[in-house]
Every structure is written in C-alpha cells, then in structure tokens.
C-alpha cells in the first residue's frame, strides 16, 4: 500500500520530490522549500490523492544529529531503514526541517512532507492561504525555531512573550534557560 502511495505522490509531483522514505508505514517525501505551497496545493487538488486536511506542521532542529550519526561506527544499526538520514557524503544537510502532516479525509491516508531549511536562509513560504489551520503552527515554529514564514498574515510569537530574546526549541538553547525571566523587566 505504501508503494502505491509513493507512486501516486511521485506521479503527482514529478521531479519536485527530492527524496522519499517509509518507516513503520509513515511515508515521508522531501521537497524543495521554495515550492512548498505549490506542492501542498497540488497534493490537495489531485483527485486521486486528495490530501485535503492539514493535521499539523512543526519544526525540527538537527544541530547535533549528523555529528552523532557520524561518530559511532561500531554500533549495530537499528532495523530502521532511515531513508531520511543518509550518511552525509559532502557538506552536512541543512540544519532545520519543517514537516507538514497531511491527511486525506476520503482515503484516510497520511503523508509527511518535509522541507529542509538552511541556517542562513530561515524562511519558508506560508501555507496559510491553503489552510487556515496553519496560522498558529507557523507562529509557533517562528517562536520556537526562528523560521520566518513570508505571506503569513500575523507572524508574532505565540507561546513565549514578545520580547523573549531566543528560540527555545533550538538544540543549542539550554533546558534550564538563560535566565531571561530575571533579566527582563515587566512594565
């Protein structure tokens, strides 16, 4: 079934699929970040796929993932095929990812669409025009990772307060914080 799904997705998207993988039945396709809105619109409007429901979108910071993966060679590999993390041959892959979880209400199939966001260009086109459901999740990604979403109607911080100086879900932000609550003064 997952093979059918991958085939259908690659038929629909053609060369836009940079990489694809499957793990425990979850299918992930990676697409170029500049064209994410177009990709999601195509997946939504394709009559066979009909991914018409945006479940969620969120960011992932892979700061130390590749270093960790490169080090322990003698460790036995897990059974996972790990299609999404091939060993870096050249320069390491971009630091951040934004993952979109899609669902088709008619076929109950799910698809993960992934874009990679390099550290020097922290922006992904907004998909709020396709689904209003992306409004708060995009604000949260901006809040937690500092990734901007051009085209978003109201890109403010969501969970942290407006003056908060960092992006707390980044891997280089310490768990105990940097004492922001003591530095900042409230009016």
């Amino acid at each position, binding site marked *: 079934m997952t093979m059918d799904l991958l085939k259908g997705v690659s038929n629909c998207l053609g060369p836009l699929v940079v990489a694809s993988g499957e*793990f*425990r039945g*979850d299918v*992930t396709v990676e697409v170029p970040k500049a064209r994410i809105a177009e990709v999601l619109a195509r997946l939504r409007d394709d009559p066979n796929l009909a991914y*018409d*429901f*945006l*479940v*969620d979108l*969120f960011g*992932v*910071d892979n700061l130390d*993932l590749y270093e*960790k*993966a490169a080090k322990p060679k003698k*460790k036995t*590999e*897990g*059974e*996972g*095929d*790990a299609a*999404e*993390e091939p060993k870096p041959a050249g320069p390491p892959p971009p630091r951040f990812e934004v*993952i979109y*979880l899609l669902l088709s*209400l008619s076929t*109950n199939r*799910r698809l*993960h669409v992934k874009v990679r966001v390099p550290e020097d260009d922290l922006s992904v086109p907004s998909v709020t025009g396709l*689904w*209003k*459901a992306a*409004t*708060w999740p995009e604000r949260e990604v901006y809040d937690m990772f500092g990734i901007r979403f051009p085209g978003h109607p*109201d890109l*403010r911080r*969501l*969970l*942290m*307060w*407006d003056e908060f100086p960092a992006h*707390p*879900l980044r891997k280089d*932000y310490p*768990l105990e914080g940097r004492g922001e609550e003591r530095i900042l003064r409230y009016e």
Partner: protein
Amino acid sequence: MVNECVVNAGHSTGDYVTINIGPSHPAMHGTLRVIAQTDGETVVKADPEIGYLHRGVEKLGEHLTYHQFIPITDRLNYCSAIANNVSYEMAVEKLMGLEVPEKAQLIRVIMTELARIADHQVLVGILGVDLGAFTPFFYLIIQREEIYEIFEWYNGARLTNTFGRIGGVEADLPDDFDARWRELRPNLFKAIDETDKLLTHNRIWMDRTIGVTAFSPEDALAWGFTGPCLRACGVKRDLRKDEPYGLYDRFTFDVPIGKNGDVFDRYMIRMKEMEESIKIIDQAYAMYQEMAPDAPLMAKVPKVIKPPVGEVYHATEAPNGELGFFIKSDGSDKPYRIKIRPPCYMVYQAFPELVKGEMIADLIACLSSLNVIAGELDR
C-alpha cells in the same frame, strides 16, 4: 503589539471598548486570555493570547527517557490523563514496532473510555455553570468522582494517572472491578439522563445555545477541527472508526454527529458520546472476561528503550479530538524530538472567527463548549 492589532480592527468608528478577559478570570478555563473589542455587547474582534501555561513539555521530552516522559503526558489534558498516556505509549510502540497483548489493549480501552466519560462530564458540567445552570454540574461531578475512584484504586492516582507502560499495562484490573462497574454503570446513565432532563429541552438553555457560534463544515475542516467540535458541524469523522487503532475495529458503536456546529450541537455530541463510551466499555469488559486470567499484560520490551533511527506520527481519538505524537529517534535512549499535536490547539485558533459578531456572554459559552484545556494548549 497585541493592543495595536486589536485597535486596528478595520471598520472602527472609534466607539469600541476593549475588554481584557483573563488570564486569571473565573470564566476563562485555566489560564486563557482573550482581548475582545466590543461594540456595546457585540464582539467585534477577539484576540486570544496563549502561552501562560507553557512549561516547555516538548523541550523537556528531549531530555528525558521514553519512560520518564509518560508522567509528563498526564499534564497535557489533565481532565483525561489516561487518554494522553495511551496515545503516547502507542506512538512509542509504533516506533519500536511492538505488538501489545490483547488483554492489555482491552484494559486500555476500558480505562480510556472511562476517561472520555469523565472528560465529557466535566465539559457539560462546566458549560452549564458558565451559562448559569449549576445543578447538572453536581449530578455529573458526583459520578466523575466514582470514575476517579476506579482510577485511584487501579494505580493510586486520581488525576495524573501515569497509566500503562510502553508495551502494555502494569497491572491487571483489580478483582472487584466487576462489582464497581455494575454499581457505577446505572448511575452514569442516571446522571446523563438527569442532566438531559434539566438542560436539553430547557427553554433558557436552548435560547442560550442553539445557533450560538455556529460553524460550517468547510470552515471547520479548513481550520483543522477534529473530534466533537468537528462532528458537531456534521462531519462524521472519528479516528476510532476511520483509522481504527488498538482493538477499536471490534466494537460496535455509533458516531453521533450534529448539524449546525453550534454550542448546542457540541453539547449534544458529548452527551451522546458518553452513552457510546459506556457501550464500548460493556463490550470490552465482556471480551476481557473471556481472556485467560494469566494472559500476558506486557509485550517483550527491553529494559532500556532504544528505538531504531526513524520518525513516526501516531494519532488517537482523545476526548477532544485527534491527539497525535510525532517522535523522532536518533537511536539513543531519549527522543530526539517530540511534537505533540493537541486537539484543542487547532480548535482554539479559530476562536476569533467563531465569536465574531456574537454577544460577549456567548463568547464565554463558546469557549466553554470548545473544551479548551490550557495544559495541552500551551504544553
């Protein structure tokens, strides 16, 4: 910044009054805050401000082992902690590729459905209180207390249960579950029935709820609604039926749907779902009784949980809607990234749309009927 956006409401004549409700206000459940701009008693614009209960649960998850994170999931939707525990455990089991024994799954179904009933009882009770009907609250809360007795006597905790383990459950149902359930079951029906008599056809109740903050199914889907709020709009979608997980494909139950997506429909869906949950518990308990007493309760799980490299998303139907856990593993004993998809987060972001043009008192009714729980909203 917030105030600026409220003031620039567009067609302003300058006569609007900005009202700040919350974050510490008896009608705002938990620590929610809404900045509403009103024209007389009509809401022109409402801007919800969230994050007052943000505890960094996702960040915390990256620093805890897989088992240590289970108690943290209790603190998401604290009205039905067991549903969160089970949802998280199933996500880790999917990541590990574990097969959970049938008896453990039956115990999970029984407990999750009890938690669903408790959650819906709180919602209906509080909705009544917010609209000035105090009595149904007591009828429901007394029975919720009985459900909590069962939880307490199963694992010692009432509210934050930390139910189950990765790969199964820690203990069998106690011996006198049968007697307790026999006693509780008719009382649950009685409480639902009494509440129904007091509220459903009550003139005041109908006036306050029917047609209030109605929502179309197209809008609801575009905003990412799931669960009772989506079903109230007339979309028949329930993960227990559409993407059956656990043993849910073996039970027969109905998925009640509404028509208008207003406060009344959201209330009715909850009332009917409680009865469906009782049906599911009956069937699950009958299946449980047929199992051998020494049937296994845990899958073969290693002492230290080290899942293979990979990422999974698993969603279950929590009382509020689709509760999903995305877990990315780097092969170590701690998750690399945990993302929680709380159901009320998506529902609450449509709040400005829902209450636009409604009365300020209906804003409270709407908030109450959406069942926004700050714990899972802010994480």
